């Protein structure tokens, strides 16, 4: 997870040599987006999730996230992240620690405050819903450049913004998607829209990202993103606030002991 959430988190690196011009161009766009999204060292943010079940039912989650960027240029180590839940109240204090890798499944630990139990969990079920939302685990984590292959599709305007449209195909068999179609603007390489196609090749979900703001004159971050599931009419709105950069986080702030300290 090079950058939080829905943003491509990527890394200029060595992937398999593309075999066609469109593949090379798709990879270049993704790599440039990755390069621009990186270099933040660490960040923190507060998230509010609104889950809607499509029948009028609504539920909220509040969480805080901290990210430590992986060592620059490392061929395997990705970002470390720590997510702590403030609500729903029965989950308060539950924390999820993730060590991201570029070429293998992430390592994850879950802290259950009621039992004081730190539980290593399998990161392989990444297509499962994240805390009951329309976001899958893999929509948050596993966004490293190396976890997809790419193809340039076309140029297109989206809401008046000039965009590249690229396709990315998950590497490995444990993804819930066959492919994703991604809209990035030509000026800053920010993601505005992603379409997710399921294993039957039908459109499963659409993500719309909005309210980008520039922080510290170099980090573009979204204020909101909305994931809509077309097959169930359920949706999840994510609001990001309180972005902070340059927190001086170190590996010690993302240790297994740190899970128990999170409040």
């Amino acid at each position, binding site marked *: 997870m090079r950058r939080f959430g829905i943003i491509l988190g990527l890394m200029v690196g060595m992937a398999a040599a593309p075999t066609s011009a469109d593949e090379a161009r798709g990879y270049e766009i993704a790599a440039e987006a990755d390069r621009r999204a990186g270099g933040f060292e660490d960040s923190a943010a507060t998230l509010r999730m609104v889950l809607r079940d499509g029948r009028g039912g609504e539920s909220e989650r509040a969480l805080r996230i901290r990210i430590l960027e992986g060592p620059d240029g490392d061929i395997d180590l990705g970002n470390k992240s720590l997510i702590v839940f403030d609500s729903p*109240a*029965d989950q*308060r204090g539950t924390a999820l620690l993730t060590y991201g890798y570029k070429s293998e499944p992430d390592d994850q630990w879950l802290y259950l405050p009621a039992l004081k139990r730190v539980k290593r969990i*399998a990161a392989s*079920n990444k297509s499962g*819903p994240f805390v*009951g939302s329309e976001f899958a685990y893999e929509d948050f984590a596993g966004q490293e450049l190396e976890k997809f292959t790419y193809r340039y599709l076309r140029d297109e305007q989206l809401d008046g913004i000039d965009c590249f449209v690229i396709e990315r195909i998950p590497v490995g068999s444990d993804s*819930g998607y066959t492919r994703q179609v991604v809209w990035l603007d030509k000026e800053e390489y920010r993601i505005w829209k992603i379409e997710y196609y399921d294993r039957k090749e039908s459109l499963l979900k659409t993500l719309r990202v909005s309210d980008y703001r520039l922080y510290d004159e170099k980090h573009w971050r979204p204020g909101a993103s909305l994931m809509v599931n077309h097959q169930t009419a359920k949706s999840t709105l994510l609001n990001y606030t309180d972005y902070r950069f340059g927190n001086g986080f170190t590996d010690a702030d993302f240790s297994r002991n740190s899970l128990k300290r999170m409040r």
Partner: protein
Amino acid sequence: MGARWFKLVAWILAASMTPLATATNFKAEVGFEVRAFPDQGARTDEQLFPAAWTELEWFTSWNGGDDALTLVSGFWWDAEDDERTHADLRELSWLHLGEGWELRSGVRRVFWGVAESQHLVDIINQSDLVLALDGEEKLGQPMVNLSVERPYGIFDFFLLSGFRERTFPGVDGRVGPPFPVDGAEYESDREEGHLSWALRWTHYIGDWNFAVSHFSGTSREPQLRPAIALVGGVPTPTESLVAHYPTIDQTGLEAQYLAGGWVWKLEAISRSGFFTPRYAAAVFGFEFTQGGVLGTRSDLGWVVEYNWDERGDSAQNQVFEQDVFVAARWVANDLRGTEGLLGVYLDPETRERVWWLEASRRLNSDWKLVVEGRAFAGGHPLPTDFARLVAALSAPDVDNKTGYLQQDDFVRFQLIRYF
């Protein structure tokens, strides 16, 4: 540090913390429960047990988070059982963070282990048995814990001062031993003042997680024996039990291996000083989880574990000496966090079975409903006649270890409000 001291501090803190309820670093829960027993008990005819509780937690930190104070205090009230009505200081601890180490001092709770059917290795805290039969409710334990985190793992050192007696239901309470437990005896001359210590190393390599631990001190698990009174100079059993706490040494091993949707688990102990020669016990098995079963967004998990104890039939307190645990865990992944677990412990030799049901669902963001059920089958109720009951307790039937539980099937409804 006696139980009275704990209760007093817990009471004072519960009372004095209430005005702080609006602070962000304060949280609280209030719960209501009813336990319903289809049968009358061996000791009491009562079949409905209403109860309520409150738990308060307060946290503050300073020095940029390098120092923190945590306080967790609870009070439980039971309409029928005086022993279940109790207060406890779960935590009152100071954390100091150094470079690669943490010092945690005060009353705390610590959990060790990976298995689901039995918490075999877990030994730092005493079980608050009146609240949970599965040992997942713990009394606060005074300690000093130095934790050092290195690239080759986390090393924890514990000095444990002040022993906490296990809680048991009172004369009018359920579910518990055939007689109420009244009083404790210790192997150590210093009794509950005996200082215990423990250490643990935990690390992970790839998909392997493991821990090695050692504990030396007063056993958290007691052996229950009929209390003896002198009647006309003759030692005579009475209608109560005494908890005997020996001084033990226990080495523990925890291992877990992740392979796709499979989680393989092992907990093993080697224990000496517990009335018998050194013995070993283990629980091992797997949990297999399928995501998105039958085209839904639900997860279905299968838990299979085998419980083994070297002492076999002579493991007096230990009902898990040769038992298989099989359970299905269902997680709906819905807005309300609906989930459930249905399992059974089965002794293949004696055919004794313990059914285990747990389910929960949020009603909204602040309220939650929890339903639990326990059913005991395959055993024979103990005799009700006093002399025969004492005889049965003095020479327990190894094929009827759950005999005293046979009338104690119950279902428990809990309604919890979070603040």
